[in-house]
């Protein structure tokens, strides 16, 4: 009760006295209130079900899917992605790797799913699966491999993409995400060039977006960054998106993951 009286007292101070610090504190308080009861749970449950469910033209489950630590292993795989896969000869992130498994094991057309708008049809299933698999690494530390030459090349490409200025507004990823203690409006912007920003940023997606009530995987997070950057449309699972994932994830090495998070 005393606490409430105090809060009311603070609010009744004039707008002028409403310091920026207290706005930031209030926002932090708001975010804290949302932590208990993250709707990402709903998508996590859906993803877990999809993993074992026999589906697709081949009527098979994903239980033999190799996400980097051998067929069927889902615990701890996400903190080591993106990584190089010998069978496809590509560095892949979680979502593009899931497409590979859905095509090889279940007989879906990976290209068709990649072309499906986010949140529709099989795309929403990919998001649910990614949410569950990320949750199976919750709290673990990011540990992306850099042993393979392709992984190291992708880091270098990712770095170049991160700093590339373009579009109608001359924005780069770095415009917002290369300095400490910056905000856009009231949202804190992680400095993705190093920890803790890189781990906190990269390690939070998939996340539930309260602003639109959608579950966003890392691919959609990047897609919307590029939209706001006024760039053209990054193709789902394309090498540019994966290279950026490698750059962010490697910079975040050692950072503990919180995905699936709840975000504005």
């Amino acid at each position, binding site marked *: 009760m005393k606490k409430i009286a105090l809060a009311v007292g603070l609010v009744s101070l004039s707008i002028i006295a409403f310091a920026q610090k207290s706005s930031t504190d209030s926002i932090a308080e708001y975010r804290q209130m949302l932590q*208990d*009861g993250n*709707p990402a*749970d*709903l998508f996590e449950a*859906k993803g877990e079900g999809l993993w074992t469910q026999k589906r697709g033209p081949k009527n098979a489950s994903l239980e033999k899917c190799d996400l980097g630590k051998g067929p069927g292993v889902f615990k701890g795989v996400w903190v080591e992605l993106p990584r190089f896969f010998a069978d496809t000869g590509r560095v892949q992130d979680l979502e593009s790797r899931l497409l590979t498994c859905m095509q090889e094991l279940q007989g879906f057309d990976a290209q068709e799913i990649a072309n499906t708008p986010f949140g529709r049809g099989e795309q929403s299933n990919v998001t649910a699966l990614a949410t569950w698999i990320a949750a199976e690494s919750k709290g673990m530390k990011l540990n992306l491999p850099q042993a393979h030459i392709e992984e190291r090349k992708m880091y270098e490409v990712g770095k170049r993409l991160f700093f590339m200025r373009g579009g109608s507004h001359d924005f780069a990823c770095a415009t917002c995400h290369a300095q400490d203690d910056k905000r856009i409006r009231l949202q804190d912007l992680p400095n993705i060039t190093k920890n803790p920003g890189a781990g906190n940023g990269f390690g939070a997606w998939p996340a*539930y977006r*309260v602003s639109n*009530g959608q579950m966003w995987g890392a691919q959609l997070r990047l897609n919307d960054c590029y939209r706001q950057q006024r760039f053209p449309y990054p193709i789902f699972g394309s090498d540019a998106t994966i290279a950026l994932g490698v750059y962010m994830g490697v910079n975040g090495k050692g950072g503990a993951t919180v995905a699936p998070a709840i975000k504005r």
Partner: protein
Amino acid sequence: MADPMRIRAQAAGDKATIRVLMSHEMESGQRKDGNGKTIPAWHIQDVTATLNGKTVMTAEWGPAVSKNPFLQFTIKGAKAGDKVGITWKDNKGDTRSDEATVT
């Protein structure tokens, strides 16, 4: 059919805290589509909670409850092993019931 709910029911002392997440659009009826046409309201309007089959709470919701709704309440006298059931029904007549065991 609607996706399942997530129900957590945790006993502490002589009561249990129930936290529910429901999967629902909760369309407000205030938004317009690309052609400027109002998207009709579509929302959960009745919620019923039961303890071991007996109704302990009902609620009515409008379209201003957030998408993928969260609900928290406390049942007196509930203990580990009891069954908590939640049912919702929306304004299109769709319904969903799920159950959880108090832990």
